[in-house]
């Protein structure tokens, strides 16, 4: 059987599974649509949350980032797992006790204000949209790789599938689909890593291989030392030493962590379990499941870097492995023969930061039109030619997108086709599960918080679900557009912005809502607006309006600015709060109420949302 056959079998089976589950657990009421009825077991919820969490960025892009930047990529590893500690100890038990379906609901009730609810809805929409864009891009990359179609067609087919089962199944459908998706992902991620660990380090456990010896060809050197040597020989910095400034590294990690704790689609996942005790248990499971993948990512990164360099550097193009040519076709890898020797050379950064590692001018490769003459399409060695001009200030001839590392990994290691097919199924599961979870939050924010709680309180249950479905369609259309025309080159980066936005808006507001009884409406609204406005303008200015790197505030890149936005939110809120009246007594009593895990005498655990 060929690779394509395997791909179709694995992906076909997994899709049939997801859609089957979605149809079977179709949501009937708003309660089921929003929180799956509130009775999911902690173990299943842990798995579903992990799948929800494991986005395309994590799955596809992260190991690639680790491979390319070594130590510096630790910001993603720590940021995306450490946030769970914050989420579990600071947020979810209390929000779960509060017992409403959405995050804007909490903000609206805690701050006794429609304006606060409205601001929270807007923040939620912003965060989810930014995040979904990254996911749709991921789906596009995988599909185009898989079926040899362009990324736009890939993005659109992904969108159609997500819409079908997220819109249909609501939270209930999503939860059980995500359990299946987590299993696919976990196998897809770890199995190739194990094979490669055995090949490179003679160690069954990849994590031990990374800190063990490199054993190919009877050599016995510490693996990381070998990797450092390879790196420095080609002109890169040592793999184990970072290049990023400590301030920037700190801020990005902090923004990712606090962002995690403020991400609405992760928070709502904990509303689906029975009570506060189950929330804590579920959070432990979630992090454990996530750790399985996150502990594997650095090993995949390191292994694939060694493989990539050894397979490609100084190899004549005509003898280059088949997978290289496959990826070249889809525009994910490119070779510009600068010195005309027909060999692929991969070298480290040029003289200055601005032109580091530049193979050609511009950020990503541009190709000639379809109808261009043959000699502009195909080079003398059979390579795909680029329309972009070569950057001759640099001897480096090889370009590849971060997003390709995980997918190319099993190819590089020469693994059997079924492993590659499994990996493909995992990639798609990752992107779909997160996109579906986000879509749900987005549509809930619009239908429940905007339509029902602000615009028209008399909305019937049925209409609410209808609005939710309409909103998911609209949101998906926008996300598809941006998935096709991404605002930033790499998935991980786009997603990092969503975290910045969450960190600067929801995190402080929720935190103060729980831990400060004095925090009032005026403070929260002012804080949210200032925090998110600052963060968005910083990102837009430096990312899209051509702000220069040297003008960064204290050298903090747009990915990490959410950390400062968060501090601004805290500061503004506390200041405004001092000069405005304290919240009413019943609100203060409510805050007391959510601080204890069970209700007072005879009171039942507050049932999650409310059919009206």
């Amino acid at each position, binding site marked *: 059987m060929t690779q394509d056959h395997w791909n179709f079998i694995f992906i076909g089976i997994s899709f049939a599974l997801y859609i089957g589950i979605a149809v079977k657990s179709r949501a009937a009421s708003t309660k089921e649509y929003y929180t799956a009825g509130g009775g999911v077991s902690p173990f299943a919820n842990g798995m579903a949350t992990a799948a929800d969490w494991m986005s395309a960025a994590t799955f596809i892009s992260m190991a690639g980032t*680790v491979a390319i930047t070594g*130590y510096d990529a*630790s910001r993603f*590893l*720590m940021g995306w*797992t*450490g946030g*769970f*500690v*914050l989420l*579990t*100890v*600071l947020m979810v*038990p209390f929000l779960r006790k509060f017992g409403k379906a959405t995050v804007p609901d909490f903000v609206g009730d805690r701050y006794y204000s429609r304006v606060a609810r409205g601001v929270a809805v807007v923040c939620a929409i912003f965060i989810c949209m930014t995040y979904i864009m990254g996911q749709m891009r991921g789906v596009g990359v995988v599909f185009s790789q898989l079926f040899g179609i362009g990324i736009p067609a890939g993005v659109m087919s992904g969108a159609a599938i997500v819409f079908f089962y997220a819109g249909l199944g609501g939270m209930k459908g999503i939860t059980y689909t995500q359990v299946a998706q987590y299993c696919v992902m976990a196998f897809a991620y770890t199995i190739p890593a194990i094979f490669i660990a055995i090949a490179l380090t003679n160690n069954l456990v990849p*994590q*031990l291989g*990374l*800190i*063990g*010896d490199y054993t190919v060809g009877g050599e016995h050197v*510490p*693996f*990381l*030392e070998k990797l450092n040597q390879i790196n420095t020989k080609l002109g890169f910095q040592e793999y*184990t030493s970072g290049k990023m400034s*400590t301030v920037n*590294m*700190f801020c990005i*990690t*902090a923004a990712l*962590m606090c962002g995690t704790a403020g991400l609405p689609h992760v928070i709502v996942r904990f509303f689906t379990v029975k*009570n506060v*005790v189950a929330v*804590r*248990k579920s*959070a*432990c499971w979630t*992090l*454990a499941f996530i*750790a399985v993948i*996150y*502990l594997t990512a*650095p090993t995949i990164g390191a292994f694939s870097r060694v493989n990539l360099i050894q397979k490609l550097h100084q190899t004549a193009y005509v003898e280059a492995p088949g997978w290289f040519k496959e990826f070249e076709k889809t525009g994910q890898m490119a070779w510009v023969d600068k010195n005309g020797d027909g060999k692929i050379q991969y070298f480290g950064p040029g003289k200055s930061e601005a032109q580091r590692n530049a193979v050609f001018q511009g950020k990503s490769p541009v190709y000639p039109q379809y109808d261009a003459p043959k000699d502009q399409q195909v080079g003398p060695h059979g390579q795909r030619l680029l329309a972009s001009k070569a950057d001759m200030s640099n001897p480096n001839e090889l370009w590849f997108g971060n997003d390709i590392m995980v997918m190319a990994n099993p190819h590089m290691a020469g693994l059997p086709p079924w492993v590659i097919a499994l990996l493909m199924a995992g990639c798609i599961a990752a992107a779909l599960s997160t996109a579906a979870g986000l879509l749900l939050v987005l549509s809930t924010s619009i239908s429940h918080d905007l339509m029902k709680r602000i615009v028209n309180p008399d909305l019937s249950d049925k209409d609410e679900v209808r609005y939710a479905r309409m909103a998911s369609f609209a949101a998906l259309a926008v996300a598809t557009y941006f998935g096709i025309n991404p605002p930033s080159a790499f998935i991980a980066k786009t997603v990092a912005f969503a975290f910045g936005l969450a960190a600067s808006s929801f995190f402080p507001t929720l935190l103060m809502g729980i831990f400060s009884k004095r925090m009032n409406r005026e403070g929260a609204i002012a804080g949210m607006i200032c925090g998110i406005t600052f963060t968005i303008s910083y990102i837009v200015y430096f990312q899209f309006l051509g702000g220069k790197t040297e003008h960064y505030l204290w050298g903090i890149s747009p990915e990490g600015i959410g950390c400062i936005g968060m501090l601004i939110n805290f500061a503004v809120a506390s200041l405004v709060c001092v000069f405005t009246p304290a919240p009413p007594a019943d609100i203060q009593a409510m805050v*007391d109420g959510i*601080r*204890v*895990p*069970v*209700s*007072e*005498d005879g009171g039942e*655990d507050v049932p999650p949302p409310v059919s009206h």
Partner: protein
Amino acid sequence: MMNKNSSSQSGSQYWKRNLYGLGINLAIWFSVSFGCGILWRDWLDIHFPPVGHAPFGFWMAQQGSIIGFVVILIVYSVMMNKLDAKYGFTNKEK
């Protein structure tokens, strides 16, 4: 059955204990991630014994902190369940 007054009193004491445990957890959380992985990393790389063949700070940043987080959460959840039991908040759970 507790009357309203005593229950809110034990509630506020419970909350104080809760905050105390929270503080300790977060202190550990900060030192395994930001501390070992970023701020003290260079120092740890040199002065601490390597983990396998990986420098200590680097290992903490890429693997150790994640293992640390899982442990923190498990400890937290056990601790909180004990605290709940002590203040009589568990027997009402169905």
